[in-house]
């Protein structure tokens, strides 16, 4: 009788664990991926002075995951501090979609002194149709803004995952 009771109390815990464990594992994976894996992907081994190559790798990889043809950087700036180890490189690249439309890709990398390599920091296709720059005071409304923001984050993660684990390697578009 007691064993049965104990078992009946155990079931809800098993069900909760079956739901929570994969959820937490998934969240943990995405945190690790976003904070550690993706920023460093294919950039290891390049020295600080190899920033142009790092930008090329990051730009091509991202353009490819967005389905755009990479045409090269319009401008690129490298800056480093004199006191300390920080270095930064950013630029805007020209890209084309399948129908020949032009797009501007922003790529920004930071040198990590701790990891001794370039890391992706912030990259995006500029002025895409849902960019905040097209928001007006009351369009879209608050709810639509939330939905769009969540969709953006979801899409961004999906593209980053495709860039790292997808079949096509950068530069094969």
């Amino acid at each position: 009788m007691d064993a049965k009771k104990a078992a009946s109390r155990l079931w809800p815990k098993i069900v909760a664990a079956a739901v929570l464990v994969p959820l937490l594992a998934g969240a943990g994976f995405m945190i690790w991926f976003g904070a550690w894996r993706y920023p460093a992907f294919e950039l290891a081994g390049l020295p600080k002075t190899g920033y142009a190559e790092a930008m090329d790798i990051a730009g091509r990889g991202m353009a490819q995951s967005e389905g755009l043809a990479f045409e090269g950087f319009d401008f690129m700036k490298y800056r480093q501090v004199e006191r300390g180890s920080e270095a930064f490189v950013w630029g805007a690249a020209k890209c084309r979609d399948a129908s020949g439309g032009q797009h501007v890709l922003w790529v920004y990398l930071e040198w990590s002194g701790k990891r001794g390599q370039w890391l992706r920091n912030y990259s995006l296709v500029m002025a895409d149709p849902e960019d905040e720059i097209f928001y007006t005071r009351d369009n879209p409304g608050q709810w639509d803004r939330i939905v769009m923001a969540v969709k953006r984050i979801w899409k961004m993660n999906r593209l980053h995952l495709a860039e790292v684990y997808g079949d096509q390697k950068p530069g094969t578009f």
Partner: protein
Amino acid sequence: MGGKTFERVLRVLLLAALLLTAYKGLMATPEFATAFFPERFYRGKINDAENSLIMKERHYDFNEALDKAVRIQLEELARTGESPGPLVTGQTLRLAIEKNEAKRLREADSVLVAREKLARMLRLEAAGWRMGFDCESASGAGR
């Protein structure tokens, strides 16, 4: 017996924590930092100023590139007559260009301010400036 030893350890730890707090608090003041660790003080300040100058320059460049992207969209809309999404219209595109212009002016200003702050820290370091512990020497900062 054990209780007394434990108390003594706690006392020592507490005293150490208090001393550390006092030390860290004092080192956070420019008076003590410039007097006892001027090199570390200036390294930190100049590193901060350099980083923020680079950041402001990057923000300015981001805005320039964004403006370019918006103008490309405006051209594409004029060429094809097709909007890529409900938010992109002739009106929102022109509004976006105006926003970018306002931001460009602000951010150009931020770059100047950041450059001036860095120049000021370098000047203070070169002059070997120390804050001093009286009000009069403090009032001379940056001159």
